[in-house]
């Protein structure tokens, strides 16, 4: 049998159904007599709702019901919540306002749902939605986070003075002030981390079924964490007790964070299914996705870095305004705080760091975690500063980084994190070699001869994955624990089912989780299957985000496998009349060490279930569960090097080479891990070059609400990537895994911008670096040089 365990490039088990068109996504699920929901949404960014007249819509063909926020309030359906409490510097709690699934008095962003029409067919619901008359009194709107706190700005929630949700800080301000007072060099930077729309290609979808006799709800939905959805919908929104609410997230077509959160639409579908007595289905169209999926990033930052005479970093000061949109989404508050400022030490030994973050409400869609969540923003701040500093000091950017690397582990940063292990020199060296960094000047010269400006940019990122001990995150304000659960069921004939609280929406768990079982028990992966995404099947789980499924989810499986193995060995020892300590499990067989006695795995499983001859005090069956709570975050890190060519006549940027060297610790399936890096890189390069979510500053209209306006990375925008890996195994989990899902999106934006600014010879350039922006930056630089 070919090696299928840890480290094997096993082809994916789930692929066959996807390539044959037999995937089972939420919108594919046939539900008998399902009615269709279409939402009536605010066309204004900020408006008082003075009247809603549903009479014409109700009379339209096929319409079953038209419901508004008033109906929702009558039925005492609660608002959506933000599950992470952040306290301001002055100790006051964040100004969280419940997010009503249907706005009643005021609409606060374009796309805010104000009513829902449920009809027999989707077209009937669409037609009737146009007959709902809503009278709005338009109010002034603010969309720019930098303008939200300014005196006289439109006020979005009475609870949040100056639209300020919290004013939070981390680190030792006095130590940082002292460092700057003694600095020989200070490098500063103003930057915008551009707002992005996640754009999973599968739009969000919800189908809700209510069975009156049992009082039971079922929700098929596009979720990265169905148990968390059930918890919030049950305990906070009050839809139904948990045991009466089944949430199923079948095949999910990409998430990137946007499907972590609990949204108004699934809430309304559940409520409407009961109220109207029909199953209710809703699937977003693409413009609805743009308008209502939680967006990402949207920071405005001023950062300063202090250096000693020998170019060692002695201090970092960061001030960020983070836009959280019109309402606080499920985990929004944690993103610009504990997922951002805690990573501001990067790969560097920085003795003093102080970060201040103001989170603000604006008249835009809610903003929450998007691939990387806070860590791309932190990396962008640091890696732009490092590159600018190196250029000002006229030293090699690689050398400046090398000089400041953390080299002794464990390393306690001044911003909470304790790095267990890493080798930043190794990933830097690997990337420099693979990119033929030393020969870059010759390539630049050659490009110059062709009239192109060639530039090179580095980025040395770190991220924190596998978010983290429950007790620790609890003390920082998290409303949930961040463990994972697993159940390993060995069936009587020896096949194995792994039930996990992780959720796969492209990550390949159906393959990698089986590889872990193959590694441990020596059974072929075809004998193992993975069950996930159904609250009726899996005991509980925290879902998939923050690159946690390997480091946390698989660690839980390890614990359950340990227990299964221990019990199976006890049974095998009994049956083979040997001592338990002499039993070995290898290659799918239990052997008695030093003898030729052996039993196939399946025979021991069968013996456990026939229970005819078990050791004393041993229960029948072979099934174990486990909950794993990590001891620490994991810290993947790496170096990315981007090389671009800019056409000075048009400002067009071409990525000509992209090199990634990552340290993810132990890797289960290199093929899948490389695929994760490729995808992350495309999203990061997309942010740097193409993607930008734009709201009109005056009207608050979303100007990028279709694929004609929001530029998604296409195949022709990208190159084939050079990807390689080094490994320092994580020391705080049993498999030594660190996580790989977000690295590409975290590390790549500064590499791209550093390459473009290198090509142009400029310092400041905001993302997305569109041809217009690049051309303007180059032209103004040329004109300044000429003066």
């Amino acid at each position, binding site marked *: 049998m070919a090696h299928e365990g840890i480290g094997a490039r096993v082809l994916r088990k789930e692929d066959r159904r996807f390539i*044959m068109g037999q995937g089972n996504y939420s919108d594919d699920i046939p539900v008998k007599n399902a009615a269709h929901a279409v939402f009536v949404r605010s066309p204004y960014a900020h408006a008082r709702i003075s009247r809603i007249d549903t009479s014409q819509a109700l009379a339209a063909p096929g319409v079953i019901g038209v419901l508004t926020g008033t109906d929702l309030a009558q039925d005492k359906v609660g608002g959506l919540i933000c599950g992470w409490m952040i306290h301001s510097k002055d100790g006051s709690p964040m100004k969280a306002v419940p997010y009503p699934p249907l706005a009643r008095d005021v609409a606060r962003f374009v796309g805010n749902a104000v009513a829902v029409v449920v009809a027999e067919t989707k077209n009937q619901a669409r037609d009737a939605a146009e007959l709902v008359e809503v009278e709005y009194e338009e109010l002034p709107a603010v969309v720019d986070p930098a303008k939200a706190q300014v005196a006289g700005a439109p006020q979005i929630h009475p609870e949040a003075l100056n639209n300020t949700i919290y004013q939070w800080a981390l680190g030792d301000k006095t130590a940082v002030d002292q460092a700057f007072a003694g600095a020989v060099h200070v490098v500063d930077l103003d930057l915008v981390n551009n707002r992005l729309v996640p754009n999973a290609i599968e739009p969000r979808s919800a189908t809700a079924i209510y069975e009156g006799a049992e009082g039971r709800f079922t929700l098929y939905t596009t979720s990265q964490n169905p148990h968390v959805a059930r918890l919030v919908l049950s305990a906070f929104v009050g839809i139904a007790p948990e045991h009466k609410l089944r949430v199923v997230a079948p095949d999910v077509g990409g998430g990137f964070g946007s499907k972590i959160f609990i949204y108004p639409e699934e809430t309304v579908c559940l409520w409407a299914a009961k109220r109207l007595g029909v199953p209710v289905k809703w699937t977003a169209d693409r413009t609805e996705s743009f308008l209502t999926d939680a967006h990402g990033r949207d920071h405005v930052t001023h950062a300063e870095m202090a250096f000693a005479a020998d170019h060692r970093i002695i201090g970092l000061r960061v001030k960020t305004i983070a836009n959280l949109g019109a309402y606080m989404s499920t985990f929004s508050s944690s993103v610009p705080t504990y997922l951002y400022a805690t990573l501001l030490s990067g790969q560097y030994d920085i003795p003093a760091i102080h970060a201040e973050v103001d989170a603000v409400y604006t008249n835009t869609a809610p903003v929450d975690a998007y691939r990387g969540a806070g860590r791309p923003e932190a990396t962008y701040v640091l890696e732009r500063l490092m590159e600018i500093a190196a250029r000002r000091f006229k030293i090699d950017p690689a050398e400046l980084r090398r000089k400041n690397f953390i080299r002794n582990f464990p390393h306690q940063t001044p911003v909470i994190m304790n790095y267990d292990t890493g080798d930043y020199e190794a990933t830097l060296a690997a990337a420099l070699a693979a990119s033929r960094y030393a020969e870059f000047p010759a390539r630049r010269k050659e490009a110059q001869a062709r009239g192109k400006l060639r530039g090179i940019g580095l980025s040395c990122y770190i991220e924190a994955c596998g978010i983290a001990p429950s007790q620790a995150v609890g003390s920082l304000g998290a409303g949930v624990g961040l463990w994972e659960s697993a159940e390993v069921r060995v069936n009587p004939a020896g096949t194995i089912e792994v039930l996990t609280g992780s959720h796969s929406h492209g990550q*390949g768990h159906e393959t990698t989780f089986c590889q872990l079982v193959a590694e441990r028990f020596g059974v072929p992966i075809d004998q193992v299957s993975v069950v996930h995404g159904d609250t009726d099947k899996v005991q509980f789980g925290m879902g998939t985000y923050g690159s946690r499924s390997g480091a946390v989810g698989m660690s839980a499986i390890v614990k359950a496998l340990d227990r299964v193995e221990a019990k199976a060995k006890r049974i095998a020892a009994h049956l083979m009349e040997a001592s338990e300590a002499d039993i070995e499990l290898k290659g799918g067989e239990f052997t008695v060490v030093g003898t030729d006695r052996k039993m196939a795995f399946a025979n021991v499983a069968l013996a456990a279930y026939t229970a005819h001859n078990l050791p004393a005090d041993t229960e029948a069956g072979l099934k174990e569960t486990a909950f794993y709570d990590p001891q620490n975050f994991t810290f993947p890190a790496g170096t990315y090097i981007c090389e671009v060519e800019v056409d000075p006549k048009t400002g067009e940027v071409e990525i000509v080479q992209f090199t990634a060297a990552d340290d993810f610790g132990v890797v289960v399936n290199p093929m899948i891990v490389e695929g*994760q890096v490729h995808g992350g890189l495309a999203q990061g390069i997309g942010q740097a070059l193409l993607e930008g979510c734009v709201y009109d500053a005056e009207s608050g209209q979303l100007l990028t609400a279709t694929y004609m306006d929001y530029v998604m990375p296409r*195949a022709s925008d*990208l190159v084939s990537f050079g990807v390689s890996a080094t490994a320092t195994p994580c020391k705080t989990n049993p498999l030594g895994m660190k996580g790989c899902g977000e690295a590409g999106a975290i590390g790549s934006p500064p590499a791209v911008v550093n390459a473009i600014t290198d090509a142009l010879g400029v310092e400041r350039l905001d993302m997305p670096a569109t041809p217009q922006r690049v051309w303007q930056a180059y032209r103004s630089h040329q004109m300044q040089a000429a003066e």
Partner: protein
Amino acid sequence: MAEVNVKVNGRAVSKQVEDRMLLVEFLRETLGLTGTHVGCDTGQCGACVVHLNGRAIKACIMMAAQASGSEITTIEGLAKGDALHPVQAAFREHHALQCGFCTPGMIMTAVDLLNRIPHPDEATIRKNLDGNFCRCTGYHNIVKAIAAAAAQKRLVEAAE
């Protein structure tokens, strides 16, 4: 109402549908062929690509009635029983899919591409994927898979 007479994956189908029904709705909702996906409803993302009379088209921007009289192949009709089409096999072999949502449209586009241009270079492959978005793979392995399928096709042709 409009009458739609089509051959879908080799099977003749005749249905009365609403005039405004889109081809993709006809395939997914009337015929239950949910392998064809809807990612954007405006003709950009390519999740809905099927073959109409042997050429790739976007089923979200065509009326079902317009397709009447045509032969349609969807992702469900590409494999011959259990035997995968070489492009399907190459997608699996080269890990050209993650969440799988764009995959059916991507494969249908790739098959059409190789029908039109049997020996594309990387730039040609990338250019021809402009109408298909993938948010998971960064296209790296999709490009590799299509190149591999083309190379395999060359080998088969050389052997014949």
